[in-house]
């Protein structure tokens, strides 16, 4: 546990010193600042401000997660910085898990900073304290953690560039696959085509489970059961992905 913590802490330190993270954070904060001005000029209605602000936070977090997930671990292995670590009493599993927790912590920090800015913007726009918005951001963080786990898993067997391509594809599929299944059922599609859609559904993570932005924007009652289900789903998926990543990394010749 100690080694995982040390590696995670070091990952946070290294990544927040990176210019890309800082630039994206500044852009994210700037975007939320612009939302404040637009709320008076264009958006006018509070739900519109909330929707655009939450979408912006989601977008910046997704870029950061994609960037960190596909480069951080891969870079350490490829540049052989990992030699310094693995020649010490640190197992490959500890290194990988430490990296994962470190990256999740960086995204949590980003989410937290953007969430503070979001709450200020909504309060100034006349929305008071938006607890549901905060919950939506927390769910986004959960989704990003899963996203990072997937990116790290892909990074164990492919290059950084390919990892970006694969992870982006999964990100896209993860958001449309549940709609695809629904559409297929509504349209009465069966046979091989339905089987194919179902395979996609069970093979790729269903990222729409983490999307409660609509609930937050329209301030409707939160379906707590689905929130709990999403939590269990994310944890299970992350554990499976990390197990697979460790299994591949253990066999990798570095």
């Amino acid at each position, binding site marked *: 546990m*100690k*080694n995982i913590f*040390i590696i995670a802490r*070091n990952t946070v*330190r*290294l990544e927040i*010193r*990176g210019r890309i993270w800082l630039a994206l954070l500044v852009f994210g904060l700037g975007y939320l600042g612009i939302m404040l001005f637009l709320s008076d000029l264009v958006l006018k209605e509070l739900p519109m401000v909330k929707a655009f602000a939450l979408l912006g936070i989601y977008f910046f977090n997704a870029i950061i997660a994609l960037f960190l997930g596909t480069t951080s671990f891969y870079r350490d292995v490829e*540049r*052989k*910085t990992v*030699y*310094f*670590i*693995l*020649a*010490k*009493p*640190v197992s490959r599993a500890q290194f990988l898990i430490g990296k994962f927790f470190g990256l999740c912590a960086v995204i949590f920090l980003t989410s937290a900073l953007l969430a503070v800015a979001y709450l200020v913007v909504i309060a100034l726009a006349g929305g008071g304290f938006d607890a549901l918005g905060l919950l939506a951001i927390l769910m986004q963080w959960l989704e990003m953690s899963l996203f990072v786990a997937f990116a790290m898993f892909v990074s164990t067997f492919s290059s950084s560039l390919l990892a970006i391509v694969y992870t982006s594809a999964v990100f896209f599929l993860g958001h449309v696959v549940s709609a695809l299944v629904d559409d297929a059922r509504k349209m009465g599609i069966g046979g091989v085509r339905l089987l194919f859609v179902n395979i996609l559904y069970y093979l790729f993570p269903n990222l729409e489970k983490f999307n409660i932005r609509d609930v937050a924007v329209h301030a409707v009652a939160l379906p707590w059961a689905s929130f709990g289900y999403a939590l269990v789903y994310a944890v299970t998926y992350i554990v499976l992905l990390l197990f697979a990543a460790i299994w591949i990394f253990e066999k990798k*010749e*570095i």
Partner: protein
Amino acid sequence: MISFSHVTKIYGKRKKQRVAVEDFSLDVAAPICGFLGQNGAGKTTVVKMVTGLLEPTSGTITIDGMPSSSAESKQKMGFMPETPYFYESMTGIEFLRFCAELFSAGDRDDAFLEGLLKKAGIAEARDYEIHTYSKGMRQRLGFAQSLVNDPEYLFLDEPLDGLDPIGRHDLKESMLALKQEGRKIFLNTHILYDVEEICDEVGIIHEGKLLYAGSVKNFCAGRPLEERFVEIVKEHEKKYEERRTKKEA
């Protein structure tokens, strides 16, 4: 004692297989053992196996009777990789602190770590970010980090590469001082002069096979090490060629 017993390492799978180290057996007890070989001879593969970075395809490697890749063995081992790559945005002292924390006795105070930087000759660069370091300074930092756990065994992979004459001299002096302290050093190098100067024993590896292991004096038998090294390598290649011709015939 470091013990290699019938160690073989094969890279790749099926048709793309390449034998990097073949049936390698060696017991190292000397204070400083130089491991000599041409580029691509298998030196780095051997060091990577003993430090647990690579798993041998077959055979065993032990340190004081324990598997060398075990956590217990790693606790008493220091390793400096060839051409070290660091976390560029960390400072020298931060990097040492990070490395020290990974050992069970990780509570090294800054005075101890500063002492290592001083020993390596980069104390003044303590708070500089590593991306500002020259190649020689990186080698020195790599050497310093290999000492953070006060190791009994040191594995140094081409530590003198990229160092200026003063740097080379200082590092060799440091190795001799470590020898005086009772530590064992396994020095990977292709620079014959260094082996002749500071090593007690030498292992010569060529195309993954150990050609000689023993004292430097016995090996040289009054002749220059370079001459003997070329002789033994050519002898091996000649024998190999003869065997191949016989097989083809």
